[in-house]
């Protein structure tokens, strides 16, 4: 009999390291955006007491990418946050591949359901 946990283990360690790399890349992007953001707004008054909702430019992937290309600090931060949101989604995608390699089709199906819910949320909300 094969050992279910040990079979998964090698793949899991690799995925764990990839996830941490993803978080580090996202944090670096956010930090770069922070430098540009603060260089423009450091001495402006802070007002987050009143909820206004973000501008459309900071709410969807195409608009955020466009702003980041123009080196807008806020857009770069937002892009980094989107990268961060993508790390667990990438994790679920890797799991689909891992289960397929193990020929565990029940879990390929269950994992695809989770992936479907995540993508439905992202696409349905209009971010991507």
């Amino acid at each position: 009999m094969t050992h279910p946990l040990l079979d998964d283990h090698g793949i899991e360690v690799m995925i764990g390291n990839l996830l941490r790399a993803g978080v580090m890349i996202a944090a670096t992007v956010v930090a770069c955006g922070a430098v540009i953001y603060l260089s423009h707004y450091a001495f402006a008054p802070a007002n987050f007491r009143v909820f206004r909702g973000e501008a459309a430019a900071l709410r969807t992937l195409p608009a955020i990418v466009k702003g980041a290309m123009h080196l807008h600090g806020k857009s770069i931060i937002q892009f980094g946050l989107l990268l961060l949101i993508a790390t667990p989604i990438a994790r679920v995608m890797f799991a689909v591949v891992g289960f397929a390699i193990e020929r565990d089709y029940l879990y390929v199906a269950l994992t695809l359901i989770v992936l479907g819910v995540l993508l439905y949320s992202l696409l349905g909300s209009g971010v991507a």
Partner: protein
Amino acid sequence: MTILAFTVFIALGSFVAGFLGALTGLGGGVVIVPLLALVFGVDIRYAIGASLVSVIATSSGAAAAYVREGYSNIRIGMFLEIATTVGAIVGAIIATHITTNAIGIVFGLVLLYSAFLSGRPQPDVPVDATPDRMASALRLNGFYPVGTQMRAYTVHRVPLGFSLMFGAGTLSGLLGIGSGAIKVIAMDQAMRIPFKVSTTTSNFMIGVTAAASAGIYLSRGYVDPGIAMPVMLGVLAGSMLGARVLVKARTKWLRVVFSAVIVMLAFEMLYNGFSGKL
């Protein structure tokens, strides 16, 4: 206050929250929202958006460390994530339909419950060898390391655990927290999964659950880069440092102090919610 000062203060506060959250195992997310809303006067919707993002950072950042220990069970996690992700979407939808004061009251109750749970001893549920048909069919049973050996465990009451996970997901999406404490209860108390397996599997589920509602928050304009940036960087740095010193630190009194802080924040949150100040 200037933006620079605001950013530095929030980053420091988030660093401390992430550090204590990792040391005590209570997670930093649960104190981020009250910290932002009550101490810094940030609108609770921005606070929830920022907290949700920081929850993903700590979960994904710690995944490698947990996996290496060999406790987490990816099948249990993936199966239960069907419930938590759907719950998270439901929670995020509820969040737009209720007032910020109502969110504050629910938050206060969840804070009180988290403090209560952390004060309770965590007995390792005795390993029960009776197989459960549903758990066997879903191949949820597994092994975990005890000393140098691998010990088998069986999973029970799958429908109950699945339902509780839906609730955990809903609270996560509604309040922008990881709901780690409730996830652990569902696994360790309801499904009789060993405590170590429950906590590590919960950590891996938290990020995926939060990702299900983060997109909704972002598209609604609840994620402000000026707030989410210092929160995410602060919590991430704090939790990474916390995980490093965890081995050496004596966490018992820290848990007591942190729980006391949570209770204080809970009452403050309830008071503000009931008096309509949020």
